[in-house]
């Protein structure tokens, strides 16, 4: 009897380990950020892009309105690509687009807007990238769809027509 306990428990232990490792294989090892969780928008103070005045975030986002916060920079190539889409989105006027200028040279940023147009209702400056961290952002470009002071969805990377259709669907 005693001789049987050892191999028997060994088999069980190895069985458990095998099962756990096998389960582990099924999980994706590629990190995918959570884009769908509803989170309250962060509270922050920032400087306004054109006037340089300090603004509180609570005075920008009103309840019952849909906002798109877009993090952009003049040095970011994908931002340049998505900019015409933002201009189009702005024309439909149901959505307030708020810009967050990320780690940028202000002169370059102004030239960028002069060249490609300004779709933003308001723009804030984030010189050291800390406000983007408050939002849980990874880099530029990144957009947050906001309704009732909650982040409905997060778009990491440049927007494309497909995502724009999704946003439009939400607006309806």
């Amino acid at each position: 009897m005693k001789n049987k306990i050892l191999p028997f428990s060994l088999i069980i232990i190895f069985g458990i380990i095998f099962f756990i490792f096998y389960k582990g294989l099924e999980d994706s090892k590629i990190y995918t950020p959570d884009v769908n969780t509803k989170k309250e928008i962060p509270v922050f103070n920032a400087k306004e892009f054109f006037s340089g005045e300090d603004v509180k975030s609570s005075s920008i986002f009103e309840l019952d309105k849909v906002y798109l916060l877009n993090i952009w920079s003049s040095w970011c190539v994908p931002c340049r690509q998505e900019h015409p889409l933002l201009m189009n989105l702005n024309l439909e006027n149901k959505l307030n687009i708020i810009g967050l200028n990320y780690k940028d040279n202000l002169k370059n940023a102004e030239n960028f807007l002069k060249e490609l147009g300004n779709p933003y209702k308001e723009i804030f400056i984030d010189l050291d990238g800390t406000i983007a961290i408050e939002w849980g952002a990874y880099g530029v470009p990144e957009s947050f769809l906001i309704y009732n002071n909650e982040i409905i969805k997060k778009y990491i990377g440049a927007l494309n027509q497909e995502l724009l259709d999704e946003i439009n669907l939400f607006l309806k």
Partner: protein
Amino acid sequence: MKFIRFILIIIILFPLNNVYAEENDKRNKITKNLRCLICQGQSVYDSDSEFANSLKIVVDKKLQEGLSEDQIYEYFKTKYGEWILYDPGLNKNTYILWLLPILIFLIGGAIIYKSFIVKK
């Protein structure tokens, strides 16, 4: 005389240096335990990416605000999820990870006890 002055300067500067180092140590410890989410296999401490540099500034700010280490981890966890921590806490997704070694140790111990010590 010169020598005494030199010693005095060292004595005065030494504790200040220590205070600065302590805060730096804490910051380094925290950033080493934060994963740089846009880099591959690097901590925030190791990385020089835009994301990591901003994160270091935020850690400094939070330390100055007087937040404890755990509070800072909690803050980043709410922003980016558990994945940002290299040292995950005990929860329903990680309990196997934490309990398995103890379990194996106990079962192994029981086997050794049964087959060698009880035999005698």
